[in-house]
């Protein structure tokens, strides 16, 4: 089933760019275009799309007004919201209203694809488990929002391969690139699901899904983790027991 998309932007050229980019994407169907908030609300209620590409600053009501109007009328059937805006100051607010992504204009085809991919994943999750969640398991964050190199990132935690400490900063490495954040490892450790992320060193946390192997060096007993991309990280003595207990499990 193709992903149904509504575009909302008061600028013709902005809508045109989205239309052109989406036309080339497989499995995407644009079901409507709104030039202001009122039009958009009507359109979404009428077409029930999967995704709403939403500009924030529009004449009259803004993008957030659209969301509150929609969630008032049908809270369970909200489309996945992808904000497209030239303003970076609304990122947190967008995160709080559970937006799927936040695209800063101008954005590339690639960036739009990533956002749509996230929207698709979210739709699939919704279909798979409805609203049910396993009650006994503590909920861990599944996304981070931060600013890096002039962009806003709504980074799915699953995309993180490993996290390294560099003095007052942590380096978040994804498959594509790395981001420096002024933060602490311990702060990160509490936010991450211990079943997925393992601290192996004072200055390293790895995503177990991206670990290829654990190896103890025969000669001096030093232990290393090799990541799927080939990166090698040392395991410190103090954290080694965690790995052995993990292997035992």
């Amino acid at each position, binding site marked *: 089933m193709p992903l149904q998309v509504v575009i909302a932007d008061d600028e013709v050229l902005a809508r045109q760019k989205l239309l052109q980019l989406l036309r080339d994407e497989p499995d995407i169907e644009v079901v409507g275009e709104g030039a202001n908030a009122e039009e958009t609300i009507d359109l979404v209620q009428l077409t029930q799309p999967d995704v709403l590409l939403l500009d924030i600053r529009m004449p009259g009501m803004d993008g957030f007004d659209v969301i509150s109007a929609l969630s008032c009328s049908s809270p369970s059937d*909200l489309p996945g919201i992808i904000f497209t805006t030239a303003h970076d100051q609304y990122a947190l607010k967008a995160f709080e209203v559970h937006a799927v992504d936040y695209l800063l204009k*101008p954005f590339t085809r690639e960036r739009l694809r990533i956002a749509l991919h996230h929207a698709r994943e979210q739709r699939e999750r919704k279909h798979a488990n409805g609203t049910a969640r396993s009650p006994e398991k503590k*909920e861990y*964050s*599944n996304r981070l*929002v*931060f600013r890096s190199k002039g962009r806003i990132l709504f980074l799915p935690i699953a995309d993180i391969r490993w996290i390294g400490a560099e003095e007052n900063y942590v380096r978040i490495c994804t498959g594509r690139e790395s981001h*420096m*954040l002024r933060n602490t490892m311990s702060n990160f450790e509490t936010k991450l699901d211990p079943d997925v992320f393992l601290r192996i060193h004072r200055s390293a946390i790895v995503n177990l899904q991206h670990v290829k192997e654990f190896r103890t060096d025969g000669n001096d007993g030093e232990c290393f983790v090799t990541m799927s991309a080939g990166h090698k990280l040392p395991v410190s003595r103090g954290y080694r027991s965690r790995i052995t207990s993990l292997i035992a499990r």
Partner: protein
Amino acid sequence: MLRRILQNRRLAIKLNKPTKQQTDPTRPFFMHPVVFLSGWLALGILFGFQESVEMSLDAWKVPLWMPFAAWTLEFLLWGLTFLGMWHFLRASIQAASTRQMLLLYLPLSVVVGIVEEVLYITIFRYQHPGRHLTFLTRLGHNLSSALVTDVVIFWMGFIVFRSVGYYQRYREREQLASQLQSQLVQARLQALQMQLNPHFLFNTLNSVSSLMRSDPDGADEMLERLSSLLRITLAKGQAQRIPLQEEMEVVQLYVSIQQLRFGDRVSHRVEVAPEAWDALVPSMILQPIVENAYVHGISRSLGEGTITIKASVEGDKLCISIRNAGCVPGAFADTLKRQGVGIANVKARLELHYGSRQSFSIREVVPGDVTALCVLPLEIDKRPSSDHAEPLYAASSSDRG
């Protein structure tokens, strides 16, 4: 452009703001009424003590409290007189011309002297050893012995108040001068900082314009990176010094844009020691150096180039080197001759920021391998290092329930 307008406006606001000194001249601590009167009281007691000792040595038949009371009263009267002068006549004293001094303050000093004595005699009418004499006789006696002293005391106060005025005006002027000086430096720094951007901006726009026809997605990519670069540059606003980490974000964005232009011909490496990330550097100081490496080095060489940016902390110095391997051998001498606006700017800005506490050099270590070395005094960003200094928000779920 927008940023320059904003900055100029901010600067104008700063210049128009009246200084605190001009509207509210500070009162020297000794002119606080309590401090001032206590001072005079202490002097009175001291003189009283001295006289009572003398009197007891000379075996006078006067109660010992008398000299204390007399001197304390005398000095307290002066204290009150001067306090009044400070409040009502200070401005006039500080501005008085010689003419005014002679025609107004000289007679006033005599009048004040006479009034002092009249008050003194009136208060000590019945306690004084000479109480059997008439008022006028006593006044005549007191004036002949003390009027000159009174006038001298008056003029001493006059001189002190006038000096305070001179001192305050001197301080004010000094403060204003240093403010203007720092604003001037600020303005020059901003002007220099501004020369860097447009140059690069138009080159990149030209690349976009060229890519638009051959590779629309590439043009898009370049515009996105350029926007990101503009966004962080604008967000820095007026900050003159920023942590190396933020500066490196700018450099890396710049490099990523250049990478689109030069493709595989250039690779770049960044090696920053972890403790150097928080060291402060002048905002937009590295980009022109890296730009220089591209413009004068790699873009004119035919082979592959590598740009390596290293930063380390050595003692109380921050050392940053930008090495450009793969230039045309000998091109460096040419580079020195044509050293662009960018490098001259870097030098001027480092000079303004750190004076002689910095050094900057570009040398060709081996043919075709040029290194720019920048040594700055180490200043560490003071933001709290523990806790989460940077807002980081994590959501427990992106799905709505």
